């Protein structure tokens, strides 16, 4: 009996016997660029949104003016009395969630930490532990999707994956893998490997790896057979599992995400992109604002993390307090990451700091919803709130991008959590 009670406390709302109606909401729908006032949302017994109603200058086709409660049959009613603010669950674009449970305990973490420069064959998805407390903390704070990238101190560390934080095993959580191949330039990568030990060496090595991958990608497309010697050398490259993900990059099917903070390092990677041509994304980006023009011209998105970097490292002595604003104003496609694993729950406040810098509120919300889905190659529906889709949104009792807003209700993949908790 006691065990049953405990279990009940830890679980979300019991399997839905009936419909749930949320009312008294202001509902932000960034995918439709609409804010519904006096909104109601009806969720059916399977956890899917059945009806969306509210007031807006122009209603989207999937929302109605007639209040949802008029079509509901004895629903559980939760009335937020006009004070509820609903937003789609956010996308955290860069985290070790599930790979890093207790940082200092190797037994609880996963990732390559040897001396190999290229471990692109490693897939974050294969190391994620789905029962991570940090995943629960993120989900209970309204972060519904996390892009998990491999730990490691190599040059190319592996492939990231997009996961839902809604619970269940990895096969239920996975949205897409791989999302990108991850690399890093900077002193964090420095180790005894002759080339990888320096930033110039890292660039040389990256150029060499991408060059080999480019050769393989071209050979894939070509119908002409090479000489036996050429075929033999190609086969050697094909047999190298760590090159295959980079072939995907050079064939244009996957982006290469390079983590770099220093403006000159970023400029070097941009040169490499011009030289070889591949889809590039920059993460970190403390000094990226200094090369914002080039980033915008080359259509390279930046995943800024942390939002406010400190000038406390030789790699980013030129960090400023308004980097997000500068990048946004220069036309750089910008995503925001929490720069954390255990505090992915603070992603919304990182967006709030972007607002604090002067970026419009709606633009900041898009960065962790619509823009994130587009840059990461996810379906727009993952951040939509509309009839027919599983409930994937969170209600706050105030502005979610400030400390005024507390999480008061959340749902994830159609599972409802009427009393979300942070430990």
């Amino acid at each position, binding site marked *: 009996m006691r065990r049953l009670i405990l279990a009940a406390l830890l679980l979300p709302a019991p399997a839905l016997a009936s419909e749930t109606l949320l009312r008294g909401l202001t509902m932000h729908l960034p995918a439709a660029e609409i804010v519904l006032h006096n909104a109601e949302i009806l969720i059916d017994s399977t956890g899917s949104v059945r009806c969306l109603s509210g007031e807006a200058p122009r209603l989207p086709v999937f929302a109605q003016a007639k209040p949802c409660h008029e079509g509901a049959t004895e629903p559980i009613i939760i009335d937020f009395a006009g004070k509820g603010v609903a937003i789609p669950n956010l996308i955290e674009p860069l985290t070790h969630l599930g790979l890093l449970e*207790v*940082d*200092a305990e190797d037994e609880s973490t996963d990732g390559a930490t040897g001396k190999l420069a290229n471990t692109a064959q490693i897939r974050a998805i294969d190391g994620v532990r789905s029962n991570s407390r940090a995943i629960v903390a993120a989900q209970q704070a309204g972060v519904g999707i996390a892009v998990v990238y491999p730990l490691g101190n190599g040059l190319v560390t592996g492939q990231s994956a997009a996961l839902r934080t809604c619970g269940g095993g990895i096969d239920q959580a996975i949205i897409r893998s791989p999302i990108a191949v991850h690399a890093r330039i900077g002193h964090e990568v420095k180790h005894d490997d002759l080339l990888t030990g320096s930033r110039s060496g890292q660039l040389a090595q990256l150029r060499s790896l991408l060059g080999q991958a480019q050769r393989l990608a071209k050979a894939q497309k070509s119908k002409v057979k090479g000489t036996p010697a050429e075929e033999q050398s190609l086969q050697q490259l094909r047999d190298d599992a760590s090159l295959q993900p980079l072939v995907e990059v050079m064939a244009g099917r996957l982006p290469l995400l390079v983590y770099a903070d220093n403006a000159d390092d970023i400029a070097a990677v941009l040169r490499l992109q011009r030289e070889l041509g591949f889809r590039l994304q920059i993460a970190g980006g403390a000094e990226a604002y200094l090369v914002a023009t080039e980033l915008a011209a080359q259509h390279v998105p930046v995943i800024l993390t942390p939002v406010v970097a400190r*000038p406390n490292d*030789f790699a980013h002595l*030129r960090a400023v*307090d308004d980097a997000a604003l500068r990048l946004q104003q220069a036309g750089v496609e910008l995503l925001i990451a929490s720069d954390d694993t*255990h505090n992915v729950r*603070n992603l919304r406040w990182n967006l709030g700091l972007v607002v604090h810098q002067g970026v419009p509120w709606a633009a900041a919300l898009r960065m962790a919803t619509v823009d994130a889905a587009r840059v990461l190659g996810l379906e727009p529906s993952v951040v939509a709130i509309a009839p027919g889709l599983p409930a994937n949104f969170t209600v706050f009792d105030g502005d979610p991008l400030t*400390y005024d807003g507390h999480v008061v209700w959340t749902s994830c993949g159609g599972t409802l959590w009427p009393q979300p908790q942070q430990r």
Partner: protein
Amino acid sequence: MALVQAAPALAMPPGAANPPVLLRHATLWPGTGAVLPDTDLLLQNGHIAAIGKDLPLPAGANAIEAKGRIITPGLVDMHSHLGVYASPTSRAHADGNEMTAPTTPFLRAIDSFDPEDAAIARGVAGGVTTSLILPGSGNLMGGQALYIKLFGHTVAEMQIPGAPRALKWALGENPKRVYGGRGQLPMSRMGSAWAIRQKLNEAQEVQDSQQRWDKEVAHTTARPNRPDLEPLQALLRGEALLQVHCYEVHDIETLVRLSEEFHFKVAAIHHALEAWKVPQLLREHHIGVATFADLWGFKMEAYDASVHAPAILQAAGVLLALKTDHPVVESRDLMNEAAKAHHYGLAEQAALAAVTRNPAQAIGLLDRIGTLEVGKEADVVVWPGSPLTLGARPERVFIQGVQVVGDGKNLQAAWSQAVHPTAGVCGCED
């Protein structure tokens, strides 16, 4: 020998030489729990000279209209490594941990402190006016703390004269990771407790032998003297405040056992992410807590944290402080720790007290700083609105009556920028 280049002198020494400042029509959050609307605050001779409605403007005083502003005491960061891990991060300036022996109570943070750390100017831009600079937690007994105000060119100018003595210890994971990893004592918590007990026994023996010597009429030997143990003797005499890195319940219990065995007091446990589980134990032993608002998970002793801890501890009557552990959290974000704790249920004025009044008490300076009260040192922060909001930064910061930050200037940044010409060091708002 002529100086090639004269060292710049402080723009204005804190204290008497400055004109009085009258801040008018502000809302005061004095750190005592009260809220005083439409109140004036007079800073004179480095101290708070008057608080009240419509105070007269003294001759030669600067009047500053502060209607709509909130004024708080200068923030007190009771766990900071400013200056001992100077920014930017470098091996050359990593001076906070003498990890060559597990018990080094004789070391002094003042001997490592780099007054040109660029982060000091950023800290004061965040409203921090006082910091307790601690040695790191690699050693069981890390050394002696340094009390500073965040304004000055040299450590002599920053050091708070007449401040108490404070010792830094560390229990838990760090010392046993450092020394156990080398196959040395302590490799376990048993080893840690023994190493501490052994040192305290030695200190007690020296203390006893000195007392016997002092009672002798004629001396046949020199007075016993162990400079390496003298700080521990001060602790045993009740003349030093003990600040202990201590996270988990079993470490807290070990510390309490040691304190009962050797009759010393613990001023506060630091980080203390499991303190929320044993608030009664802490209250009974008058042990304060200096903690983070929401950091967790970086090691086992940080795995069982609760965002509700500050509210739980406060409600249980434990002396509660929030701190940065700079550079773990940046010094200038101390108020943000209070803001997050407030979000998670710590009452507004309790959140303010956790970064002003309470840490001032826990470091033994409440008679001088920590609240806005007449006679206290004029360490004062003017905020454009509630300091407990996301991204809040001070408009003005005064240290002993000198405006260090405000009007687009940061006097402290002048020093660190000369050494480290970095953008963003000012932290001034517009």
